[in-house]
């Protein structure tokens, strides 16, 4: 794999039921590339949580997945409200989601912690009122 492979997705923020479609697609693509199942699972769970977050909090956004010889990089970009206190948002159990989201099985304050758990590196670049970009890397040789 000489050239990096890039997958681009628009994440529709208007429909919670369709959230996760990009992650399902990435899972299939990575399987076709023959990556180890543990890596595929980590990438797809991290991206799925990110997608759900974009739909719940930011009215959607864009997702790019870049596959190189040594890593899978996931870049999730939205123009949502931003995260006021990243440290607080990273704590398990902290959530600003509504009771409607709770009734759908999410908003338990596990999204960002799960994304960190399943990735090797995670960077959050957020500006309140402007948006959030989250970059996660999962290395293939660890």
């Amino acid at each position, binding site marked *: 794999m000489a050239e990096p492979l890039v997958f681009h997705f628009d994440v529709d923020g208007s429909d919670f039921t369709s959230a996760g479609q990009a992650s399902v697609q990435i899972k299939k693509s990575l399987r076709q590339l023959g990556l180890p199942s543990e890596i595929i699972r980590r990438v797809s769970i991290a991206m799925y949580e990110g997608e759900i977050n974009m739909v719940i909090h930011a009215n959607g956004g864009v997702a790019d997945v870049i596959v190189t010889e040594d890593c899978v990089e996931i870049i999730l970009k939205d123009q949502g409200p931003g995260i006021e206190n990243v440290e607080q948002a990273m704590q398990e159990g902290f959530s600003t989601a509504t009771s409607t989201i709770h009734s*759908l*099985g999410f908003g*338990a304050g*596990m*999204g960002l912690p*799960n994304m960190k*758990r399943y990735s090797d590196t995670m960077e959050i670049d957020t500006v309140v009122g402007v948006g959030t970009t989250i970059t996660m890397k999962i290395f293939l040789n660890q």
Partner: protein
Amino acid sequence: MKIIDVKELLNAEVLCGEDMLDEEVYSACGSDMMSDVLAYVKEQGLLLTGLVNPQVIRTAEMMDMVCIVFVRAKKPSEDMVRLAERAGIVLMSTETRMYEACGNLYVNGLNGKVVRRDG
């Protein structure tokens, strides 16, 4: 434990994936919170839940789970059944409540240990 044993122990109705009932499951997770399900890594899992929406199917798919049992007689929509068929996941519905269903499967041997990924 084979999926067919799960069906019999819980007296469950199979809604899709009839051809996969001979597959083995080694561990299970009972939860209505999908983010909690996503926090645990396991192989060939079974999900018991009382939550009914398409994200239940996607969560199971992300976790490489092969079977979902809806407890308390909950039934998935046709869209959910189609999603599960496409993902190769068996769907079942049982009248048994969550606590009882988990206990029943556990004492009958489905007690695979769960590994949580840290850091």
